């Protein structure tokens, strides 16, 4: 009866079959996470400062890199997996991401609409300031 299945606590490192199949030590998991995070961070700083890339696409690229790094942190540092013992953790995370998305996108959408209808365009404002 020792093998009753409980959910896994978030942050608990897996001592299950997956880890053995990868033949990874626990330290190795954290080290891979660190290496991936360093690569993604360095890429972010490079993308922000280079002139080789198409400038209007850079904010989108930075957002994609940040999402990727968030995934790396969740998987390798917080040990959130897709396993059945992690369903509760993943569902809570999904709900959190939904709320974050609603707050950020909703605020930006409403405020940009508001400033479009309330204020003269920025170029006009600048002209007023200059004269």
């Amino acid at each position, binding site marked *: 009866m020792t093998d009753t299945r409980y959910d896994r606590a978030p942050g608990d490192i897996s001592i299950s079959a997956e880890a053995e199949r990868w033949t990874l030590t626990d330290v190795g998991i954290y080290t891979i996470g660190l290496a991936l995070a360093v690569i993604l961070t360095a890429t972010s700083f490079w993308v922000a400062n280079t002139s080789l890339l198409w400038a209007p696409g850079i904010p989108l690229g930075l957002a994609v890199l940040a999402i990727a790094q968030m995934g790396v942190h969740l998987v390798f540092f917080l040990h959130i997996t897709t396993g059945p013992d992690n369903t509760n953790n993943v569902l809570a995370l999904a709900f959190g991401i939904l709320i974050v998305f609603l707050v950020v996108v909703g*605020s930006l959408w409403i405020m940009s609409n508001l400033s479009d209808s309330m204020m003269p365009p920025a170029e006009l404002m600048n002209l007023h300031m200059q004269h």
Partner: protein
Amino acid sequence: MNIAVAIDELAPEALPSASEAGPAPKRIVVAYGFWIFLLSDIVMFSALFAAYAVLVRATAGGPTGAQLFNQVSVAIETACLLASSYTCGLMSLAVNERRRAATYFFAVVTFMLGAAFLALEIREFADMIARGAPPQRSAFLSAFFTLVGCHGLHVTAGLIWLAVMMAQVAIKSFRPTVTRRLLCFALFWHALDIIWVWLFTVVYLMGVRP
């Protein structure tokens, strides 16, 4: 042969599911509750991020992000926080194996890296205020100091928490209450690093673009 395969596949399903197995161990309940807290904390940060994104152009004729931010210092802060997240993970492994010396060692390294991050951030804030960019200068700067300062306060709280936990390890050793708190601390510290990823991306990297 097919039947054998079918039974092999069925075997895990035959175990009682989580809900049938009775109350989960306290470690799982505590960590799950703390996970919910962290997610609500992240929701609070999302409101600050939204405020910053809305107000980023509202500089009121004052200095803009491009004039104020120093990417080298931000890169060093990022490296400190990322390395401290890594050593915090190694500390969790040492705690799981009940290795006291390794726990202290990685806790000290984590603390030093976190403190270095905080010192750099305070120096950056002091520098900005000295250059005529205090929080009351413009809506952009109010949003900036609220967002980044709130993260800095979380890091400060994390450092105090880490020091308290090391005192508890010294006095109480690795009893279940202490290891549960250490698990929660590790979750907190990793979550702070996730928030910092968004901070340096949105504030320091996107913010300096024209």
